[in-house]
Every structure is written in structure tokens, then in C-alpha cells.
């Protein structure tokens, strides 16, 4: 007799479910923090190599302890709040930037289902903290909340540079959020579900269901190349990553929205930048590269994809000059938004014809 495995839920096994849930949350959180810490090291090393420098070498073997040393240094620095700043909003800003990116990880599936037998009953644990049937919308909502961190930092610092950085970032994030949101619409027109688990499952099997193409997976990057490009660029703009880092443009604005920050609060802004990069990488991998599907064991494929995107972001930072403000707005509203809308219309027609 073949037993159908049972999905672990709160109603059938409360204790096991709670333990599994807490474990999943802890693992996701710790892995993310570790990647954040070592992303700074990787970034300095890789950019160093690309610019024929060495990067950090002195702290520990090959400079491997550099992130820990940096963290300790920032942790013991004096925490200063400018006398003319709004103290509450000033302290709240870095947390509001960091929290949404961590919360968004909760709906991302990071591995294939885990099967195990306990007390003679087979259980299935989905490798995802929670599967919402509106997962994509949840991610968009969290991305929208991320704006507050930068806006508040700019506003609460009571400094000209910070204010300019805040205004720039608000305009930038609102413009590119639209393009990013619209480009994903085409993806869930194909998958016919908003659940990220459903989107990963829809990307299994050979390309477009044609058996002759069985060596190419049915990833949405092949069906939706335009949406992939638009989403990646728009997300980079949304998290203020380098060709779009006008809010913290060093040559013009000292350090932009985080000019007045010091010590751990300053470190939180940097952690938020890398955490946002990881979240964006994870979302892009899930939506366009088939999530955890691939040649290796579930979570390994997922981590490889995330690291590939991180490398891509760092690479971009080493190669591209910063956009001008008018170029940024022109690209957001006059190039990417119409392209995203056109992509939706074309996908709609294609879906209708295909059926």
C-alpha cells in the first residue's frame, strides 16, 4: 500500500508544525544575515579584482574576517543623533528600510519539498516559510514599504544633502515600482497563479511543453525575456543599486540620505542594501529562473541562482557609470513603462491564441 504523504499543518500536528516552522524561519534568517555579511566582502574583492586591485587582504586569511572587523568597528562607534533631527523618525528610518526585505523572504520557496516519516506517517514539509495565494502581491507591497526608510532618513536628518537624497529616491522608487510591478504581470498571466510556489511548479518540465526541447527547462526567462530584463533593471533602480544610486551619489550629495548617520544605524543602511539585493535576486530567480528547479538538490540550485544574480549586481557596479537624473526619469517613464505595458498586451494576445 502506497501512503499518500500528508502536508504538515497546524491542525494535524501542532508540535511538529511549530518546530518545523521555527526551524525554517531561523535557517532563512541566519543564511540571509550570513550572505549579507559576506556579500560586502565579495563585493570588495570582486570590484578590487576588476579594477586590478587586491581588495581586503590583511584581516584573517585572504581578508576573510574583514566583514566581522567592520561590524565590530561600527558597533563600538559612538551613536550620534544630530540635535536638529527628529529623534524618533531618525532612529526608525534604518529599521524601516531593513525590515521589508527580510519579511519578503517569507514567501519565497527556497527548496523542493522535504519528505520524512514520523510515527509511521509520511509528512511533506514545503521549503518555504509560508505559501500565500497572493505571494507576488505581498512582495510588491513589501517593496512599496521599503521607500519609507529612505524618505524618513532624508526627512528626519534635517540636512540639505539628506533631504535632496530623500526626494530623489522617492521620485525614483515610485517611478520604477510601476515598471517592476507591470513587468511581473506578464509572468502571472502565463502561470495563472499569484502563489510563488505555484509559479515555480508552473516552470517545471520541458520548454512550452514540447518534448523535443526537453533539455531546456520551461523557465519564464525564455517565454518572457523582455519582462525579465525590465524587472531586473527596475528592481535595481528600486533598491538604489549602482547605475541608479542617485540618492547617495557621493560626488554630488556627500552620502545622500545617510549623510548624517553614524555607527550601527549607518551599518543598518548598508545591511539593508545587501539584504534588498538578496531579496531581489531571490524573487527574480523564483519568477524567471524556475526557483529551486535545476540539476542539483533543491536549495543548492536556488542559492547558485541567487549568488549568480549577486555577482551580476556587483559586476554592474564595477562597470557602469551613474545615470543623470533626467536620463533616469526618461528611462523609467518613457521607455520601461510603455515596454512593460506593450509586453502585457502581447502576452495577453499570445495566451489567447495559444489556448
Amino acid at each position: 500500500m502506497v501512503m499518500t504523504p500528508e502536508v504538515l499543518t497546524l491542525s494535524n500536528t501542532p508540535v511538529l508544525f511549530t518546530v518545523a516552522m521555527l526551524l525554517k524561519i531561523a535557517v532563512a534568517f541566519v543564511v540571509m544575515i550570513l550572505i549579507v555579511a559576506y556579500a560586502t566582502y565579495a563585493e570588495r574583492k570582486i570590484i578590487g579584482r576588476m579594477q586590478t586591485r587586491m581588495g581586503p587582504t590583511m584581516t584573517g586569511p585572504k581578508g576573510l574576517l574583514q566583514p566581522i572587523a567592520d561590524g565590530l568597528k561600527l558597533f563600538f562607534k559612538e551613536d550620534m543623533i544630530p540635535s536638529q533631527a527628529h529623534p524618533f523618525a531618525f532612529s526608525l528610518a534604518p529599521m524601516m528600510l531593513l525590515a521589508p526585505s527580510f519579511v519578503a523572504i517569507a514567501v519565497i520557496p527556497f527548496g523542493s519539498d522535504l519528505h520524512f516519516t514520523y510515527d509511521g506517517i509520511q509528512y511533506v514539509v514545503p521549503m518555504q516559510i509560508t505559501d500565500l495565494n497572493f505571494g507576488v502581491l505581498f512582495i510588491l507591497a513589501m517593496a512599496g514599504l521599503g521607500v519609507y526608510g529612505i524618505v524618513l532618513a532624508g526627512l528626519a536628518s534635517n540636512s540639505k544633502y539628506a533631504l535632496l537624497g530623500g526626494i530623489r529616491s522617492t521620485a525614483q522608487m515610485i517611478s520604477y515600482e510601476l515598471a517592476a510591478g507591470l513587468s511581473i504581470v506578464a509572468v502571472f498571466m502565463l502561470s495563472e497563479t499569484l502563489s510563488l510556489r505555484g509559479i515555480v511548479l508552473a516552470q517545471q518540465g520541458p520548454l512550452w511543453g514540447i518534448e523535443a526541447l526537453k533539455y531546456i527547462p520551461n523557465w519564464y526567462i525564455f517565454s518572457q525575456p523582455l519582462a525579465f530584463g525590465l524587472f531586473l533593471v527596475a528592481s535595481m533602480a528600486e533598491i538604489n543599486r549602482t547605475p541608479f544610486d542617485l540618492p547617495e551619489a557621493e560626488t554630488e550629495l556627500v552620502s545622500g540620505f545617510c549623510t548624517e548617520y553614524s555607527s550601527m544605524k549607518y551599518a543598518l543602511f548598508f545591511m539593508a542594501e545587501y539584504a534588498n539585493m538578496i531579496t531581489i535576486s531571490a524573487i527574480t530567480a523564483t519568477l524567471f529562473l524556475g526557483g529551486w528547479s535545476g540539476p542539483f538538490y533543491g536549495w543548492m540550485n536556488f542559492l547558485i541562482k541567487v549568488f549568480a544574480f549577486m555577482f551580476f549586481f556587483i559586476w554592474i557596479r564595477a562597470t557602469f557609470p551613474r545615470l543623470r537624473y533626467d536620463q533616469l526619469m526618461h528611462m523609467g517613464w518613457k521607455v520601461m513603462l510603455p515596454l512593460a505595458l506593450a509586453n502585457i498586451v502581447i502576452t495577453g494576445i499570445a495566451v489567447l491564441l495559444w489556448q
Partner: protein
Amino acid sequence: MEILFFYLVAGVAIVSAFFVVKCRNPINSALNLVTTFICLAVFYVMLESPFMAAIQIIVYAGAIMVLIIFVIMLLNFGQTIKGRYTHGIAAGGLVSVLLMLVATQLVRSGDATGTGGPVTSAMIAEVGHTELIGRALFLDFVLPFEIAGVLLLIAIVGALIIAKQKV
């Protein structure tokens, strides 16, 4: 458990809504309003309408409030109002007490006997809230939906004409 959670979130919603009015610094008011919106989103989740919750956060907390803060920033309203305004407190308090009485009266005047119509909790769980709303908007009520879209377009064009006399 759920009722306790409801009272917790409701408490936060009411306190933050009170501070929206009370704060003298417009930024703090705006922040408190964001908190109220997020509490409302939690209520939508508890009422089994997750789509509304997501839209509440995306549209109200993510877009409208950011625009309001953007305006505060551009017009430099960031300063705290120094004077203490007391006029209107009595009338405002009276109106809110009256409103509360009317609302309590309405809520307590009868018990819900059951849900009517084809959309039930079981159906939401099976089909999905987003699909139900999408079907209703684009199949059953497509004409009112399009009219609302045209109305918004007229509003945008009107705003543009008022803001920019010479286009």
C-alpha cells in the same frame, strides 16, 4: 486567540489614528497614518480578503502616503507647529462620541445569521480571492470598471490643466 489579536490590532489602529490628529509634526502624523493603514490591512486578512489587504498596503501605504510625505518634503512642512490649537476640541470630541454611539447602536442592533450570495468562505478558499475579484471586475462589472477608469483619466487631465496653464 483570534479575538485577542483583533483587540490588539484594533487598539494599535485607534491609538495611531488618535496620534495622526494629535501630533504637531506632520511627519509623525503621516507615519501614524501608515500604521493605521497597516492595521486595516491586518483586518482585511482576518476577514479572509487577502487581496484587499495587499492592495491596501500597495496603494495606501505604498503609494498615497509616500506621495503625501513627498509633498511634505517638497513644501518643507517638516517643522513642528509651535502654537497650541484648542478650538474645535469640544465640537470634535462631541461628534466623535456621537459617531461612536451610532456605530455601536448599528453593530449591536442585530446578529448576523449567515452569509448570503454565491461567494462563501469555502469558495474563497477554493478559487482564490484574487481570481474572484478579477472575474467580477472584468466579466460582470466591466462597464462600470471602464467608466471608473475614464473618470480617473479625466481627473488626471484636469489636474494637468490646472497645474500647467501653458502646456
